[in-house]
């Protein structure tokens, strides 16, 4: 152990993480002493934590790449943007979930604390400069997620999906760790910077590196939910309580993207020729399987799970291109996808009520009659997810298709667009249910003002970003030069 003293300056880039950790511990203690009827206080404290973390990240914003903790922690503009976005999505997710949790007696402090722990894991992954940091963040995220999925003790489906998630996640984490250990063995360092240098020296064809790479890809693919490592996704999305599903589709996706960027693009960027073909396979399978199987689903959460898989395929298209434009496109796709997905699950939460899950497709029947405005919001979200202009999902697709065409994979682009048409079918089906069918009963939409307002803004954001995509595109280009 060296005698270096850690100065305050060293900790500055990590203030947000330290703050969140300290706040979570504090809220945990406070929560123990609160009566059930005062649980809103925990909720408020968690939201304040998010606000505080956002403040810290924004004020300590890094304009260039800074490392701390002996290179294990990286702060750069990409990390700041991803973290701020994560705070926002987690906050929105918490807001959407509140009424649902209250109605089902799940309004416990632990829910928000586990959520914040998971978010902390994502933050650590985003700022990872070393293999160990990646693993640390990943495990923190995963273990918190397993617990969140099992949160509803009375639900058998939730317990089953938590078990599946846990077992499969453990295997995938194990594979990732094994791959990391091989990389460490071959390159001699855990730090991603050093690994990148070693990759240049050893050459991309080094058998040891390729071996480690394969296992690492398995771990990344699992976290994304890419085919054929996707089997946990539909079950977990279906079985978990809807707020947890919403959370899982937001924060961990950003984490998975950060994982891919830090590990594959930055650390192992020199091995692009090695992992490109693997990612092509993952991407093609995800797009094909995700879109085809989604058609057969009657449960909306499962359908959105398969839709997620297909979108992961598109994100991987941007990553496999290996160009700056490709990574920027993948970042843009991730951000816009999370916005759309959070909105879609928010709509499911909006329609759920006492003793009623609102996750069957038929629950959306005749929504145009029950609530024309929210039917319109869901219409915008669905067409956006399908990639139809003038919504933001279209620009996401243009970005990744352009990136793929730029490196000469015309067949891949044609396949991707073909399957996005196949995928459009199940989004159209939902619009059809809302607009063309009669409602099954007189079920007015009951929700508080905050939720209605946020969901409306969510839907309008999808339209606004679709008509004026320049701002978000510029942001993505600036943070990934």
């Amino acid at each position, binding site marked *: 152990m060296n005698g270096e003293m850690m100065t305050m300056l060293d900790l500055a880039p990590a203030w947000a993480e330290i703050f969140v950790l300290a706040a979570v511990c504090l809220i945990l203690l406070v929560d123990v002493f609160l009566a059930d009827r005062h649980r809103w206080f925990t909720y408020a404290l968690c939201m304040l934590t998010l606000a505080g973390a956002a403040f810290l990240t924004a004020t300590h914003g890094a304009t260039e790449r800074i490392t701390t903790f002996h290179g294990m922690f990286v702060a750069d503009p990409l990390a700041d943007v991803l973290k701020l976005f994560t705070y926002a999505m987690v906050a929105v997710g918490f807001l959407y979930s509140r009424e649902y949790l209250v109605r089902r007696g799940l309004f416990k402090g632990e829910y928000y604390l586990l959520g914040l722990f998971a978010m902390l894991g994502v933050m650590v992954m985003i700022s990872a400069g070393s293999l160990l940091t990646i693993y640390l963040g990943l495990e923190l995220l995963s273990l918190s997620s397993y617990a969140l999925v099992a949160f509803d003790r009375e639900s058998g489906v939730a317990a089953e999906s938590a078990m599946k998630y846990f077992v499969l996640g453990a295997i995938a984490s194990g594979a990732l760790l094994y791959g990391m250990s091989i990389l460490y063995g071959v390159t001699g360092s855990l730090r991603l910077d050093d690994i990148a240098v070693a990759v240049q020296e050893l050459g991309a064809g080094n058998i040891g590196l390729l071996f480690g790479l394969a296992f690492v890809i398995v771990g990344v693919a699992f976290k994304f939910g890419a085919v054929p490592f996707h089997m946990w996704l539909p079950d977990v999305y279906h079985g978990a309580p809807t707020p947890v599903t919403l959370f899982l589709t937001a924060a961990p996706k950003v984490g998975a993207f950060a994982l891919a960027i830090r590990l594959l693009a930055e650390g192992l960027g020199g091995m692009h020729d090695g992992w490109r073909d693997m990612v092509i396979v993952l991407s093609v399978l995800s797009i094909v399987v995700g879109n085809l199987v989604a058609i057969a689903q009657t449960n909306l959460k499962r359908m959105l799970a398969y839709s997620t898989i297909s979108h992961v395929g598109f994100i991987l298209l941007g990553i496999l291109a290996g160009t700056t434009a490709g990574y920027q496109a993948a970042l843009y796709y991730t951000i816009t996808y999370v916005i759309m997905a959070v909105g879609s699950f928010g709509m499911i939460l909006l329609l759920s009520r006492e003793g009623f899950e609102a996750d069957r497709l038929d629950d959306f029947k005749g929504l*145009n009659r029950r609530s024309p405005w929210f039917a319109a919001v869901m*219409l915008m979200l669905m067409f956006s997810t399908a990639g139809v202009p*003038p919504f933001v999902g279209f620009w996401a697709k243009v970005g990744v298709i*352009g990136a793929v065409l730029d490196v000469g994979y015309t067949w891949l682009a*044609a396949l991707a667009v073909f399957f996005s048409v196949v995928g*459009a*079918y199940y989004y159209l089906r939902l619009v059809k249910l809302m607009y063309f069918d009669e409602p099954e009963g007189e079920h007015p939409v009951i929700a508080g003002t905050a939720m209605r307002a946020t969901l409306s803004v969510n839907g309008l954001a999808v339209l606004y970003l679709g008509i004026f*995509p320049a701002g978000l*595109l510029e942001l993505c280009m600036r943070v990934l030069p």
Partner: protein
Amino acid sequence: MQFDWPILSVLVWLPIAGGVLALLLGDRAPGAARWVSLVTSVATFVLSVLLWNGFDRSTAAMQFAERIAWIPAFNAWYDLGVDGISMPLIVLTAFITPLVVIAGWSVIERKVSQYFASFLILEGLMIGVFASLDALLFYVFWEAMLIPMFIIIGIWGGPRRVYATIKFFLYTFLGSVLMLVALIYMYLKSGSYDIAAFQGLPLGMREQVLIFIAFLAAFAVKVPMWPVHTWLPDAHVEAPTGGSVILAAIMLKMGGYGFLRFSLPITPDASQELAWLVITLSLIAVVYIGFVALVQNDMKKLIAYSSIAHMGFVTLGSFLAFDIFAATGELRGVAMGIDGAMVQMISHGLVSGAMFLCVGVLYDRVHSREISAYGGVVNTMPVFASFMVLFAMANAGLPGTSGFVGEFLVILASFRADFWYALLAGTTLVLGAAYTLWLVKRVVFGAVANDNVAALEDLNAREFVVLGALAAAVLIVGIWPAPLLDVMRATVEQLVQQLMVSKL
């Protein structure tokens, strides 16, 4: 003549704003939604007339141009402008929409505000398609159009509307995404999404063929050409009257416009290589679909198939260019073919729109589209019968009506290319007359067939205004097509020049 204010942007966004306003007024005040829609669509039409009057006929350059930075990341601009091809189509769009609004005035009872809002937003998007000079902007408008049409057919359509509208959406969407890949490819090659830049972009033969096929996928579905036409009969039949009119009168024209704006100038060599394909498919549409129309029992389906046959003329006229030049060595015949295609687009827009409105008039009264449910309508509805016969004659191509001008120009042009093309194309004169006049004979003439027909009331003022306006337009274009041809002349000549220059 240029205006100080951005007329094209107003033409695009005024209907959209009006539609949104109608939507916000909601169903608590359906009358307000109707009046907002009517006022907005009439205002848009008046503006389009200003556009016509202010158009400079001597130049092929883009007029009333506007250019604002939109997406610097993709080098895509909010670039609007019109020339002799797009301007008449915009006027057509602005002319048809108020008629559709009036036609649906008291017929629609459910979700009235959403109905009119959809049509108005659709109008803005369609004008946007015609006015776009930036390929990405064009694509955004092109795809965005599908959403209101999807809703219109799905909510207010007939019994099989869900099947029809999903088929319509997916078919058109599939063709369009292939075009997107081609557009992005050309952007990566040229550095911008400017359509003019694409037209000047040098492309190798293999690239041209692939891009041509991608465009063909999109436009052939839109036109529609045989064999990707099967969505049209379903969509037209199941759509409400207003939806059918807009589909037939304007949305089909976008395919023809696409061929003229994109396929021909951007990939001239591939167009020359594959012209035989397009000509063959067009002639199949004219002849075979003409026969299919002959055996229909459903009025709307018959008119739908007739639409496909007439649009066959449009694609035929556009792609005869190379054969004509090869045969005659002169550009005059080439221009005639394209002129014919353009006039046919305008004329067919008016005539098919009118025929669907006539069927709509009958449907509103009897609630049946079967030919067998009618007979001897002339006895109880003589004014209506006169309109219907006029439009039927126009559909058949009677000289003096607009239908004749386009067909005559295309057949004359095809004579210069090849005798057999002309012969096959000319069969439309026989087939078109056959199915249209037989329809008219069964429905309009003869003795009163049943009690439903006996109880028919003649046109009310609203319907009279709509059909009258269309009749006037059909006759004016038919008797005096010179203004229309004048407007197009410079642009068509420039297009012909572009076609003759190889990019290889």
